[in-house]
């Protein structure tokens, strides 16, 4: 699709003055680097300020003020926050929620995306719309009935000690999967439309049933899109605190993000300690981002197919 490139004959109408630099030679990038470097530094200042705060003992900052040269630097705040607030336990809760929710979302979404992009049944566009729109409804709109629904739904005792979906990690996983499916389905269906149909024809002639086409052709081909979506979804699900704020009652079942609020309540007099705790909660998503960064952008071809 080489769309509407302007015809190079436009000179006949507007006698352009020849430009100072020949357009074929790439311009010097120094100015651009200065600008982008400056913006990047400004963008990192808030985070670096939190890092700086977390590295200083509380006594030092009370004596000299926060905006002062450090008199001692240590990781003491980190080890204190780690041991005094039960962080390992809350981390584990977050893992228990995030890992199944991300996998479930990607599996469900890829199945639906496969269906709508590979077959053309009459209702497919409507189905895709239903999924996509589901992710665009603000969470606050769902929360009241969802809360009541969770109080009515039983779960077996091995899944939830409250015997309900309410106040169980499962409930949080369910809503994450259902709510996030729309976004992933949308992105994946765009991605799958770019897979040449001939591959499926060949597979069918070879007698491969649909489920094998799905597991052995489509899923491996969608790896870049999965990397991008896994990054985004891990970040969103790990960072969520609205669902767990309302749908979990017992403090010790909360994920790390809501636990941080407890830490703030407990040590509100010591911002340095809280800064250390807050930064530690950010480490997992940063790791996921760095691990998948290479595929992240290339996999996010959001329906900008050429043509």
């Amino acid at each position, binding site marked *: 699709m080489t769309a509407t490139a302007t015809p190079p004959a436009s000179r006949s109408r507007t006698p352009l003055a020849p430009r100072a630099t020949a357009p074929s030679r790439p311009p010097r990038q120094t100015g651009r680097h200065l600008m982008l470097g400056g913006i990047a530094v400004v963008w990192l200042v808030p985070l670096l300020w939190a890092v700086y705060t977390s590295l200083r003992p509380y006594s030092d900052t009370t004596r000299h003020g926060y905006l002062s040269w450090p008199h001692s630097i240590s990781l003491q705040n980190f080890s204190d926050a780690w041991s005094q607030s039960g962080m390992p336990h809350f981390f584990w809760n977050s893992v228990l929620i995030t890992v199944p929710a991300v996998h479930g979302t990607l599996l*469900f979404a890829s199945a639906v995306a496969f269906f709508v992009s590979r077959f053309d049944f009459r209702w497919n566009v409507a189905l895709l*719309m239903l999924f996509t*729109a589901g992710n665009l409804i603000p969470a606050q709109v769902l929360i009241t009935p969802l*809360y009541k629904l969770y109080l009515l739904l039983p779960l077996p005792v091995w899944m939830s000690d409250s015997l309900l979906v309410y106040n169980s990690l499962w409930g949080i996983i369910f809503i994450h999967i259902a709510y996030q499916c729309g976004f992933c389905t949308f992105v994946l269906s765009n991605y799958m439309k770019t897979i040449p*149909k001939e591959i499926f024809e060949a597979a069918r002639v070879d007698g491969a049933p649909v489920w094998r086409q799905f597991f052995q052709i489509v899923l491996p081909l969608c790896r870049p899109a999965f990397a991008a979506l896994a990054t985004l979804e891990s970040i969103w699900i790990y960072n969520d605190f609205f669902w767990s704020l309302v749908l979990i009652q017992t403090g010790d079942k909360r994920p790390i*993000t809501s636990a941080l609020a407890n830490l703030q309540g407990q040590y509100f007099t010591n911002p340095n300690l809280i*800064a250390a705790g807050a930064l530690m909660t950010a480490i997992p998503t940063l790791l996921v981002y760095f691990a998948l960064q290479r595929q992240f952008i290339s996999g996010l071809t959001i329906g900008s197919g050429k043509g």
Partner: protein
Amino acid sequence: MSSVRTAPGPEGTAPRSPARGQSRRPRQRSLDRGDRLFLTVVVGIPLLALLFFVWLPALASIGLSFTNWDGLALADMRWVGFDNYKEIFTNYPPFWPAVEHNVLWLLFTALLPTPFGVFLAYQLDRKLRFTRIYQTAIFMPMVLSLAVVGFIWEIIYNPDTGLLNGVIGAASSGSHIDWLGDPHLNLWAVLVASGWRHSGYIMILYLAGLKGFDPALKEAAALDGAGGRQTFFRVVLPALKPVNIIILVVTVMESLRAFDIVYVLGGGTGSKPGMQLLSLLISDNIIGESSHIGYGSALAVILLLVSLAAIATFLVQTFRKEDQ
């Protein structure tokens, strides 16, 4: 319709009943029972989950908004028609300020962080050293959790010990600036924090869109003597319509949904003067001690209607080309 490229399957599993509207598409005839079962299961389960956990609550919210339910006993529920809505529009002091703040939020986000993110993406989408470092630095705020972001901005805006007052010399007594407490300032303070995140998000989305852009178009524009700015506005921007729509929808939805960052920076107690937003008013009414479920649901429906306008625009634009 570019689908009828298929030859009917060689094994010829003829359908037993072509009753349902003579299928135009031979491809589906090759689905045997195993295939059908597989597809029914893998599409059916997500569909049921979606209907049950998302669409059912959304519809229930609409129903509840016409009642005066307090969230306790179902027997006490009374049908009150449009009373909640009347009440909200005429007799609920925080409502109009919240609408105003949501609109302000949208305008701010659409006019500053969003174009800035697009600008950054355009600057970074070229052969450039360190481009990944720049991307990472600017996308970083999106990776951090809201709880962390909230805390980071708290130690910046803190009136006594914060970085901002320390730098501009407003920390000494007498010239205190209470960024998050002053109802005339706090919304702007939160908007800065929100824009800090939003720019990186838009940048990443737009970078992804630019990856699908044909570089030949850019070269053609350069040969015609178009400058960088002209190339962007005349060539790149119109060619990236699908991405532009996504950016627009993301911006509108994020502005309507804005909740977490305000909740955290407001101290986690609900709406505060100067920082009321629709999402916070909803949670005020349904999570607070006095649970006015009917009332909160009516607010939720108002938010839903506004969102639906954005959703509909997006869906129509996106799927129109698929229906052709």
